[in-house]
């Protein structure tokens, strides 16, 4: 009879620590997680809800947390899974039709001949103004591609992981990246390079 008592006391201690720890995490990591969630979702309310869910999930799964792991890294991975769930749920059943009609004619040749112009890219990464334009171009991508492009570059994630988490085939992901980059090229061309 003494054993169940012991375990229950132990788990109560564990619970107290857990609550303390989670409270500390909320204090320390809310800001970076909120910013990351907003960056990915482009919506304040959705970002706030999602980070709340991240902490609730972390609370539930606390026992799986290995203390040698950086808490923020762990929380980020929960956030990424939540974002993937959100994405799959939102676009479930939607066929990913990716039209390239805007860029290529029926024979598959370029429509916009400006593709051949030269980019002077020496100072790009340094200029504040360029960064804003670049951010805008990324944000003009349709939501369901933008999110993947951002995630793809954010954590140097392997494409196979992204495909698995988001329920996409590799070909689908390539096509999404192809389509997104065609649009980014065009956007930068018109908004930056041609106006230099």
């Amino acid at each position: 009879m003494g054993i169940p008592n012991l375990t229950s006391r132990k788990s109560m201690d564990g619970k107290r620590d857990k609550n303390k720890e989670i409270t500390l995490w909320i204090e320390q990591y809310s800001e970076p997680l909120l910013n990351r969630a907003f960056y990915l979702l482009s919506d304040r309310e959705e970002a706030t809800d999602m980070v709340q869910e991240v902490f609730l999930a972390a609370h539930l799964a606390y026992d799986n947390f290995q203390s040698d792991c950086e808490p923020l890294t762990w929380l980020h991975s929960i956030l990424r899974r939540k974002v993937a769930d959100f994405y799959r749920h939102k676009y479930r059943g939607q066929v990913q039709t990716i039209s390239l009609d805007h860029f290529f004619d029926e024979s598959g040749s370029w429509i916009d001949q400006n593709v051949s112009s030269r980019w002077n890219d020496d100072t790009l990464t340094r200029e504040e103004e360029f960064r804003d334009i670049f951010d805008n171009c990324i944000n003009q991508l349709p939501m369901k591609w933008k999110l993947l492009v951002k995630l793809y570059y954010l954590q140097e994630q392997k494409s196979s992981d992204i495909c698995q988490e988001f329920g996409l085939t590799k070909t689908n992901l390539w096509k999404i990246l192809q389509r997104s980059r065609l649009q980014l090229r065009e956007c930068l061309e018109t908004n930056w390079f041609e106006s230099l």
Partner: protein
Amino acid sequence: MKKIISHIIHLLIMPCSKATLMMERKQQKELSPLCNLQLMVHLRVCKLCAAYYRKLSVLEKLLRAKENKNEKTIFQSDDIQRFKDDLKRKMQE
């Protein structure tokens, strides 16, 4: 003559719409040697794709450089404080 060769290659080997997809696969190192060869031949004769290919590597560099630096602070410290307080209250329930 050059124009005719270019035309044949676009028709027989692959159109630009497909070549740009091959570029994505190449970037992710998921292009078979045969496809790679096709892409290289295409790039040799197609000026537009060759130019686009150069631009892609600029884009790739820009996107890689952006990593983690682009999270603007949308939330004010008041918002964040409120978020923390709400959540802590919820957790205690």
